[in-house]
């Protein structure tokens, strides 16, 4: 059992030893661990860092090898704050794309980015989740309502629209970014 009174007496002698080097925050250590967990990510995803010393800001490129979006190159920005992993990472699609779960500002409707986020999840979980919505877009949770309606009612037209949008075409008056490389 800890005895504060005896500890305190010793302390008076050792006062002001201090002066150790700055500590790395828990968030940074956690992020470093998250990066270690990215060694086996699928070939369809690449992560890049504008500044390799800064793990709080990076981007993800997804090149789906199957599904409606095969052939496209989709880019996301990740911004992590000091509140991580209590708070989810902030993820935005940096291109204007035609997708039922992504709006024209790049907001992504993915449950684990908001209401279902838990600190046990990590960067890898979010990346897998993002890849999943390209393989299985979910018309029941729409952010781009028009795209969701088309996917629900006319699959053939949806495929055409996706292909047209990925080439930088215009759908419903909206001009999309060319994501083919």
């Amino acid at each position, binding site marked *: *059992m800890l005895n504060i009174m005896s*500890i305190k007496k010793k302390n008076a002698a050792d006062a002001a030893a201090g002066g150790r080097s700055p500590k790395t925050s828990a968030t940074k250590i*956690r992020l*470093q661990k998250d990066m*270690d967990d990215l060694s086996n990510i699928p070939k369809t995803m*690449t992560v890049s860092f504008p500044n390799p010393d800064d793990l709080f800001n990076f981007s993800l490129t997804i090149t789906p090898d199957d599904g409606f979006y095969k052939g496209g190159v989709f880019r996301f920005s990740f911004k992590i704050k000091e509140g991580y992993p209590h708070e989810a990472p902030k993820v935005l699609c940096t291109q204007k794309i035609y997708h039922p779960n992504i709006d024209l500002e790049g907001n992504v409707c993915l449950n684990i980015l908001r*209401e279902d986020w838990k600190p046990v999840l990590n960067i890898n979980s979010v990346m897998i989740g993002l890849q999943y919505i390209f393989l299985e877009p979910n018309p029941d949770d729409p952010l781009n309502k028009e795209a969701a309606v088309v996917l629900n009612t006319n699959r053939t037209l949806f495929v055409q629209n996706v292909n047209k949008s990925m080439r930088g075409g215009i759908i419903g008056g909206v001009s999309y970014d060319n994501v083919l490389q």
Partner: protein
Amino acid sequence: MEIDNPTSDWANRWRHPDVYLQRSGPYAVEGYMPGDELTEFIHSDDCKILVVGAGGLGCELLKNLALMGFKDIHVIDMDTIDVSNLNRQFLFRYKDVGKSKAEVASEFIMNRVSGCKVTPFFGKIQDKDEEYYSQFSIIICGLDSVEARRWMNATIIGMYDEEDPSTMKPIVDGGTEGFKGQSRVIIPRNTACYECSLDMQTKPVTFPICTIANTPRLPEHCIQYASLLLWPKSFPETKIDGDDPDHISWLFSEATKRADEFGIRGVTRTLTMGVVKNIIPAIASTNAIVAAATANEAFKLATSCAPIVNNYMMYVGDEGLYTYTFPLEKKPDCPVCGTESVKITISGGWKLQELIDLLLERPGTQLKRPSLRTSTKSLYMQSPKMLEEATRPNLEKLCSELFSSGDTVVVTDANLPISLQLVITFE
């Protein structure tokens, strides 16, 4: 009772707590030494304690601790008194609005409890360094944010050097949310720490962004529509400040339009501010319950007069009344207390690769693929691919080119839950 000199202790002043400090008993903690020396210790400046936060919990804590006989109390709070605090933060009066909470609370306690010295610090916990925190015997937290608790926890645990018992500072942490609360004791590296239990924290209420965008049903959905989707479009360069009345007015007006469109009732200016600032209702008596439990644990810790809580008490008053105490377990991969601190001395002329080879050979750690960073720099990262490529050239660089003697290098490994903090000194 007549008191000649209000700054000194009058007869029988500490009669009640002294009952516990003057005699032992069958349940006393092993090694407990009751008597005058202990009584004097509690009242002396050898037993200096820190109260972090002078808000709802802080007011209660200061009152309780002063009335129990602690006479050298420090209090730290960055906030000033707002009118809305006066309904429960009873050390403040209307005339104090706008003044520092820490300063007003200190003055009130010192006027009211003779002989008790309270030293305020009006500022952030982050403004103070290890030297400041090392002067206290116990750190008692009455905070309202996860962020502040994480910082305090990491700082106090980081200060603990197992070879020097005087660096061990127990934390007693109280927290409330409406009719619920908790009180816990954290003994650095012995019990679970705050970071170990991060998964348990209630997170801010969030709604699916698709609901906010398309199918709002609640007034909160309309407010988040304004704050999450409209604001960034209208003011991409400005972050929302929940304390700026103009920001709240704009959000309130946009949320009202949205609510009218969908026939939703209940968007008010107060609710708008509540949602934007994520305000949790505070109940004065819950603060009193939790602060009382927290102060008692601090007293038991300081005196060893009775066993302390092991180690987490939750108070659940919103579904009938239920309390439960359990020993929260340490998390092996906790980035704060699951981190082993190791001091090593190497030659600054070593290449980074040589340092890594040394780590790989180090018995007992079983590192296979270590990633190394200082607090600001990626030295070598095993993954993802781009980071590995960007940091690979560092392997051939000299340690002295990459960091300075005395720097801390954090080592993680995908194969290991724990991480290492290497404090590296060059010969």
